[in-house]
C-alpha cells in the first residue's frame, strides 16, 4: 500500500483550487473536472472530497460562494476574493521556490 506524506502535500489542494478559481467562478463538479483534465489525471480521488477544502477556503474568506442558475441548473459557484488573490500569490511563490529546489536536487545540479 502506498504511503503518503500529508505534511509535504499540505497546501497543495488549496493552491490548485485557488489557481483554478482565479480564472473564473466555478462549481464543485467543474473544479474536479478541471483538476483532472489540467493535471493530466494526476489527481484521482473521491470527488466529494473537494467540498471540505472549498468550505475551508470559504471560512477563511479566500473564496466567496453564491447560488446561481446557469442553463436551467442552479449550482453553488465559488469565486476568488481579494484576500484569495493575495493568498494565491503567496502560495504560488512558495511553491515555485520549493519546486525549483526539488527540480535542482532531482536534476543533479550540485554546487
Amino acid at each position, binding site marked *: 500500500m502506498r504511503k503518503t506524506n500529508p505534511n509535504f502535500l499540505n497546501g497543495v489542494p488549496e493552491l490548485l483550487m485557488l489557481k483554478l478559481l482565479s480564472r473564473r467562478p466555478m462549481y464543485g463538479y467543474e473544479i*474536479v473536472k478541471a483538476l483532472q483534465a489540467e493535471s493530466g489525471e494526476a489527481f484521482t*480521488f473521491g*470527488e*466529494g*472530497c473537494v*467540498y471540505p477544502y472549498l*468550505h475551508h477556503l470559504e471560512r477563511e474568506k479566500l473564496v466567496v460562494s453564491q447560488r446561481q442558475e446557469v442553463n436551467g*441548473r442552479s449550482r*453553488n459557484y465559488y469565486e476568488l476574493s481579494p484576500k484569495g488573490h493575495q493568498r494565491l500569490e503567496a502560495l504560488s511563490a512558495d511553491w515555485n521556490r520549493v519546486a525549483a529546489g526539488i527540480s535542482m536536487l532531482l536534476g543533479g545540479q550540485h554546487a
Partner: protein
Amino acid sequence: MPDATTIGLFERRLIELGCPGRRLSASVRELEDHYQDLVEAALTEGCGDREAEVRAAAQLGHPVVLAENLVMGLRQASWWGRHPIIGFCLCPLFSLAVIWLACLGVLVGIGWFWGWLLGPAYAFDESSMTAFQSNSVAFEGLASPLMLSIETVSALVLTTGFCWLAWRAALGWKWIVATCAACALACLVFYVSVQPQNLTIGLRWHQPHWPLALIPVAVAVMVIWRQRTMAGILPPLPAAPHPTLPAPRALRERWGVWLRMPTYWITTILVALLLLAVAMQTVQSRHYAAHRAQLKNQIWPAERAATLARLQARQQPDSGVHETTINMKLWINAPLEADELAGIPGKAKGNNLASLPTGVHVYAGVPFDVEGRLQLYGRSQFYKQPSWATLYKQQQWATQIKNIVVGGRCDRLQVLHGACDVLVSGQRLAGLVLHYTDGSSAEIPIVGGEDVLGWWGPIYDTDSSWDRNPTAAGTELAWAGSNPSIQKHAPDLSLRLYRSAFDNPHPDLEIASIDYVSGLKHASPFLLGLTLETKNP
C-alpha cells in the same frame, strides 16, 4: 434523480455528527448537484440509467467518509471545536458569574437610560441608589424577585450560549449534552448574596440551587429528544463500518497525540489536582470527624451541664434592689408556642419558646413576668420565606410595638430578651423608647453582640465558632432550653435568652410608656419580660 441512499446516508451522518443546519442543507444540496452532474456525464457517455448511478456514486466517494471529512474540517476550524473539554466542560463553571454581572450591568444601564429619558425625578443616580439601599423594606421587596430573575436569565444565557457554540463548532449532540451538564453543575454551585452595600458572588456546594439547574437539564432533554427524532426519520447506516473509514489509532500514536494537544495536558493536570484536593479533603475530614466526636460525646455535654447549673444557681433574686415586674400581656403579638415563621408551612416547624415557663420567674437574679413574645420584624424573616411567600404572601412581624404602659420610676430597666439570626455585632437591632410623664422621651438602643446574641447558639466554650458571650457588662445568659426544630437541625446548640440591664437616662422622672422598635436589620429581636429596678432606700 440523485441516489436517495447515497444522499440519505450523507445527510444522516452529518446530523449524527452535529453539522449545523445551514451548513448541512448547503452541503447536501451541493453533493446532490455534483451527483447529478456525474450521472449526466455517464449518460452522455452512453451508460444506462442504473449503470450511470452506480458509476456516479463510486466517483463521488463513500457518503459516510465524505460527511466525516466535512464535519472534521468544521471542528478544526474553530477554537471551540479544537478544545471542547476546556470550552464546554470547564468554561461554563466560571462563566455564570460573568454573565450574572453582565445582566446586572444591563439592568443598571436600563435604569440610567430610564432616568435620562424621563428626567431628573426618575434618575437612577448615586443618591437614589443610596436611598434605595438604606430603605431595607424597599430593598428587600425588590431585591429578591430581581435576583431570581437575573439568575434565571443568566442560567438561560449560559446554557443557550454554550449550546450554540457547541452546535456552531459542529461538535454534535453529545458535546451539547456535556456542556448542559457543566452548565447544570455551574447553576448548582453558583452562589450570590445581595445585601445593601454588599454583593457576594462565588461557588459553593452548600445549599445547591436545584431549580436553576433544571434549565440546562431541560435543554439537554430537548436536544436528546430532537436528535432521536431526526435519527428516526433518516435511513439507517450500514451495520459494518465502511472499509475506507480510518482504523483506530495505535496506543503509541495516541500518546503522541496526547503530547501534542494542550487540551489533554490541561485536562489531565486539572483532573489530577481535583483528585488531590479530594484526597486531602478526605484525610482532613476524618481527622475533623474524630475531633468532633470527642467534643460531642464528652466535652460539650459536660460544659452544657455546667452552664445549666450556673443558670439554676442564678434563679434567686438579687439582694439590695427593689424590682417591679411589668405585665405585657396586652402587647404580646406571638405566644411562646408560636413558631418563628408562623404561617409559612414547612418552615422552621416547632422553632418556638414553648419550653419557657410562663408567669413570674427569676432569671439571672431578676424576676420577670413572662406571658408571651413581643416579636419585631427583622430582614432574616424575609430571606427565610420561600419565594412564593415573598412575592405573594409576605408575612411580617410588627416593626414596632407602641405604648407599653409602665407607670413608674426606676434606676435601671431590666429586660429578658432574645433575637433570631444575629449575624453582625455592633448593629442596633432594636430600641426601647422611654416616654416620660413630662412629655420627654429617651431611647435605649439594644445592640447585637453586646446586649443580645442569636437565640440559637452554644452554651459550651470549647471549639465554639459562635459568639458565646455578649460583651455588655449588664448582660448575662438568663435561660437556656430547647425546641423540636433545634433538636432536629442543630442538636449541639441551645436556645438562649439574655437578661440585660439598662440605666434609665432620667431616673427621677416617671416612665409613662415604652415603645419597642425594630432596627430593621437582619436579626429579628423579641422581648419577653420587662422589670423596673430601683435601689432600696
